[in-house]
């Protein structure tokens, strides 16, 4: 069924189709509509779930942890400060290996307070052991949430589905909403290997003494790394059934590209437009959209850079005092390869600043000049910085 849905509504439909059983969330802009919609589904009897109106995001995720540990399918959604407040429990949810699914509507972090889009919130918790998927459009949001349960429940890890605030959350697009029976076939009910059950008592969340802690972390790291295969497998299965697949990355016209832009989220759509225009005039440029940011697809990215001389990372985050996070990951991916293309980082779109076609053009021109000179003077450039107000 084709419906016109905002990103937030698409997320709610995704959770509904996945038959989330316990939903717990706290309102925050721009996430709010997604949970309002779910509350409506529950109130109308369209979704048989417990909707827990908690008193904070910290409790929202804690409710999900309890629910998942007891064997239920749990869903939450948040943004920005809410994700920051959840941060402590994010690590614990992963450490407890609970396949909670969360929609994170990407929004900048305070201070100054800003309700507008960038990806600093989810990037800042990249190390917590959650699988992170970034969406380009509203269809991908709905599909990714359904996929997220299948991935998470297979590898016993929580999954965060990230999408850009306002740009996707509040923008309506035509979305194909699959019927419930085909989603049920794709995603059977959750069968946890262990759960809190008086019939078979287990202890969850013990003290990790030094003789064991490091092994717990190693096992978790390996699980996140190995989840890459599951992300691919689930996506292929989904594509076979529903005709839509997204991969770990999208290689967009990279095959003979001399310059490749790497980005995440809704900005991919803008970059594609510039790539198409340039390709029309014979310019060998391409784009990689990183959909799966954790686990990071080092090998897949490297595989799409075979002809690249210059790489421009465009990202809506900054590791203050260092570089953008995606830039750091991309440079790690190419560090030990034979080919060493030049890589530049373009910080853009922070706190809702528009990233326009001209910014993408400027990015490509800048990296091209560097390639011609075989030299990068400033590896990190801020796009559209208003020097007059500094």
């Amino acid at each position, binding site marked *: 069924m084709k419906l016109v849905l905002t990103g937030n509504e698409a997320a709610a439909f995704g959770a509904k189709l996945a038959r989330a059983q316990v939903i717990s969330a706290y309102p925050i802009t721009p996430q709010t509509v997604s949970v309002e919609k779910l509350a409506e589904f529950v109130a109308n009897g369209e979704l048989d779930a417990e909707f*827990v109106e*908690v008193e904070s995001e910290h*409790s929202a995720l804690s409710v999900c*942890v309890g629910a998942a540990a*007891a064997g239920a399918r749990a869903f939450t959604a948040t943004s920005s400060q809410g994700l920051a407040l959840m941060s402590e429990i994010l690590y614990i949810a992963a450490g407890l290996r609970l396949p909670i699914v969360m929609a994170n509507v990407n929004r900048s972090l305070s201070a100054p307070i800003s309700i507008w889009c960038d990806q600093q919130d989810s990037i800042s918790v990249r190390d917590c052991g959650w699988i992170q998927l970034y969406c380009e459009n509203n269809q991908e949001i709905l599909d990714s949430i359904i996929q997220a349960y299948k991935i998470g429940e297979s590898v016993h890890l929580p999954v965060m589905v990230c999408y850009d605030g306002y740009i996707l959350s509040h923008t309506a697009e035509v979305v194909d909403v699959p019927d419930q029976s085909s989603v049920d076939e794709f995603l059977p009910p959750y069968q946890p290997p262990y759960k809190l059950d008086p019939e078979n008592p287990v202890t969850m969340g013990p*003290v990790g003494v030094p003789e064991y802690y490091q092994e717990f972390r190693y096992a978790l790291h390996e699980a996140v790394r190995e989840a890459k295969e599951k992300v691919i497998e689930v996506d292929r299965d989904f594509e076979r059934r529903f005709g839509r697949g997204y991969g770990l990355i999208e290689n967009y016209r990279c095959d003979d590209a001399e310059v490749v832009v790497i980005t995440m989220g809704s900005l991919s759509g803008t970059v594609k437009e510039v790539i198409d225009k340039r390709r029309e005039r014979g310019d060998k440029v391409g784009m990689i959209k990183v959909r799966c940011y954790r686990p990071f697809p080092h090998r897949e990215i490297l595989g799409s850079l075979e002809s690249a001389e210059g790489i421009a990372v465009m990202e809506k985050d900054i590791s203050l005092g260092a570089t953008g996070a995606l830039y750091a990951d991309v440079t790690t991916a190419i560090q030990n390869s034979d080919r060493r293309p030049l890589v530049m980082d373009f910080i853009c779109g922070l706190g809702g600043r528009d990233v326009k076609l001209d910014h993408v053009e400027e990015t490509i021109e800048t990296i091209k000049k560097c390639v011609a000179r075989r030299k990068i003077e400033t590896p990190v450039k801020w796009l559209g910085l208003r020097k007059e107000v500094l």
Partner: protein
Amino acid sequence: MKELLEIEEELLAPGHRACPGCGEALAIRIALKALGRNVIVVQATGCGEVVSTPYPQTAWRVPYIHVAFENAAAVASGIECALKKLGKKDVKVVAFAGDGGTADIGLQALSGAVERGHDFIYICTDNEAYMNTGIQRSGTTPFLAWTTTTPAGKVGRGKRQWKKDVPAIIAAHRAPYVATASVGYPLDLYQKIKKAKYIKGPCYIHIQCPCPPGWRFDSSKTIQVARKAVESGCWVLYEIEHGQMRVTFKPSKRIPVSEYLKLQGRFRHLTQEEIQKFQELVDQEWKRLGLE
């Protein structure tokens, strides 16, 4: 008492690492006897969790989860909702948290869960300071008590404030059942938990648990200290059932608070005037509760 002794099943296994004379371990042991096997336990970070679950060992013979310090009530809420959805109606969810995890860092999550009306029991094992980190002051540390963050010196005289009244806060949420208890009165404690087990909705039980190293007394004196707290009126045993308060044990004659304070090193620095002040405040509290 006989009934309690007859229950042989120990659901908190011996061999956990609690200190000798630990009031909290005793409280949990008695609580589990009253609760039985058909429970799911959530425990906040603290002494109780640390001493009972050093991987790969566990002292818990019932399903157990520890998540964090401040969210035991929220985790319990999630479990309760999951059980509802999974059609398991006869399993009781029980949260244990210390005074820090209840009165201070966990108060928000507790308030939220009680306000929402989840069907669960929340048990505060109150040893009146952050004992797990080494005796720091909490909201429930008593007036004038020495802790490592309220040291007694030329200027400081211990904690300057009265103990935070968490049962009253929870009662103000109109919880169906709120009670105080003491490890010095195990049968009273047992009966209150048993009662809570059969009440639908959020039940709150606040147990005073003397701590030998934290309160500075010999580990053989836990029960004696707990009883003196009640006999002197420093700790009152009551229950509030659907808004109706009832004192469950009233000492026939209240002993002076000095009898309770002098057993504990944490009050050693008190002058006669300070003990007198303490006595006056306890007397006022008794009047306020309508006990005298």
